[in-house]
């Protein structure tokens, strides 16, 4: 990138630093305008993503609407199941026909921002390896010779020209070799982070539940589908089950910049927060509920996890 820019600036006889500065300033000149709204701002009743789009009101869920899926696991006493509209990839317009019930432990946890931060930080840091390495005074291959005699010359007394005091000498407390920043977080913290991310998506109306991710080419136009739901500029993460046939969805994801596909075992906090919308297929919900609540209600491990239980999931 910089070599390309150097060639251009040589033609125009401007210094490379000035050329880069000018390009950056021209890219960000829209920020200084009076009517500028940052794209990640979410204000009540005013969403900048929807400026050029007609807003479709979502009807409220009443008790008469048929429930397509009930919760599998036992609910806590103080919380009711969360009901959410069930969407379908096959219909161009959202038909608010049926409703799906979600478990409050998964989608209505107390939003602990410190847990979320620690989980996100772990996800980004545990893979990092710092390969920086600097030479000490012993590793600089210049020898042990005394540069000038102890007395007589007017200069300071030195024993070697490799010492850290010298220019081009060794570095005394520098980085020493590949250093991995791997660490393990408590599995309960990781689980809580996932649940907090899911509940944040639900609270901020970024959760969409789909009947099934298994579709053929009978599906209507995907762009029209997104436009009708005001999702044409929103990045989506579609989570599907392993037994679903996703061949057509893979074609769609390849072509579009905003759609990503993921199986259930790949669900993680960074991906959930990175994408604007989270789309879950209904087949996942049972498995997710079962696994999460098993972890919440199981006996603690005696030592390390083992398989010697009657009812291991």
């Amino acid at each position, binding site marked *: 990138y910089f070599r390309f820019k150097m060639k251009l600036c040589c033609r125009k006889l401007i210094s490379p630093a000035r050329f880069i500065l000018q390009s950056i300033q021209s890219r960000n000149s829209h920020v200084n305008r009076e009517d500028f709204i940052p794209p990640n701002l979410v204000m009540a009743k005013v969403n900048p993503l929807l400026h050029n789009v007609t807003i479709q009101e979502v009807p409220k869920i009443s008790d008469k609407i048929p429930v397509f899926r009930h919760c599998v696991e036992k609910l806590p*006493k103080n919380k009711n199941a969360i009901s959410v509209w069930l969407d379908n990839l096959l219909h161009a317009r959202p038909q608010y026909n049926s409703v799906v019930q979600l478990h409050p432990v998964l989608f209505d946890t107390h939003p602990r921002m410190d847990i979320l931060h620690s989980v996100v930080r772990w996800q980004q840091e545990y893979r990092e390896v710092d390969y920086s390495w600097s030479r000490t005074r012993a590793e600089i291959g210049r020898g042990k010779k005394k540069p000038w005699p102890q007395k007589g010359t007017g200069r300071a007394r030195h024993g070697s020209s490799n010492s850290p005091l010298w220019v081009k000498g060794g570095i005394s407390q520098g980085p020493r070799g590949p250093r991995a920043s791997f660490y393990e977080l408590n599995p309960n913290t990781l689980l809580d982070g996932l649940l907090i991310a899911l509940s944040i998506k639900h609270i901020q109306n970024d959760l969409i539940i789909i009947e099934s991710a298994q579709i053929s080419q009978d599906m209507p136009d995907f762009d029209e589908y997104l436009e009708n739901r005001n999702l044409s500029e929103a990045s989506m993460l579609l989570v599907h089950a392993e037994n679903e046939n996703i061949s057509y969805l893979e074609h769609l994801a390849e072509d579009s910049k905003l759609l990503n596909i993921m199986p259930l075992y790949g669900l993680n906090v960074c991906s959930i927060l990175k994408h604007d919308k989270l789309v879950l297929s209904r087949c996942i919900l049972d498995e997710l509920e079962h696994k999460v609540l098993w972890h919440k209600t199981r006996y603690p491990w005696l030592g390390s996890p083992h398989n010697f239980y*009657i009812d291991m999931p």
Partner: protein
Amino acid sequence: MRIQQVFRICNSCRHILKSKVIQPLPQVSQALSYTTEPTRYTVSYEDFKHVQDILPPSRIPEPPTHDSYPTPSGWVAPSEEAPDLPYFISRTKFHVLPIVEKEKPRDQPVTVVFYIDGDIWALEKELKELIRPYVEFDPATRVHEVTRSIILKGHHAQVIEKFLYAKGF
């Protein structure tokens, strides 16, 4: 002296070996040659049922229903419906009230009540009045909204347990 002892031992061994008659090995018959058939065995899983009876379940079971509460150990089952109060305290996964007594450094006994939903400040007011007769000075409490807990100065687990069991948590 040692060398003489060694020589004496060697001579005696030689005499012993000479006197003993080495008997010939029994003749190996053709059936017991190196090319024998491998030993036959059968695999059966019948005895595994005795192991399966001992294997534990992985999920903590629901406690059985007793005739009268409190049980001999002092445990009281939670009420089936949530009580009509502005706050709610859920049980731990071992079906026990979420109260913990700990000793913070430099002689600071402390009780922590956690897993609180709803209006924590209302609970804090009630707990303060609960603890007042047991405390020398003004009862010290601290509300931690992030972790949904109340921290009280001093060890008051039994008093708080009685109070919460009476409410039906």
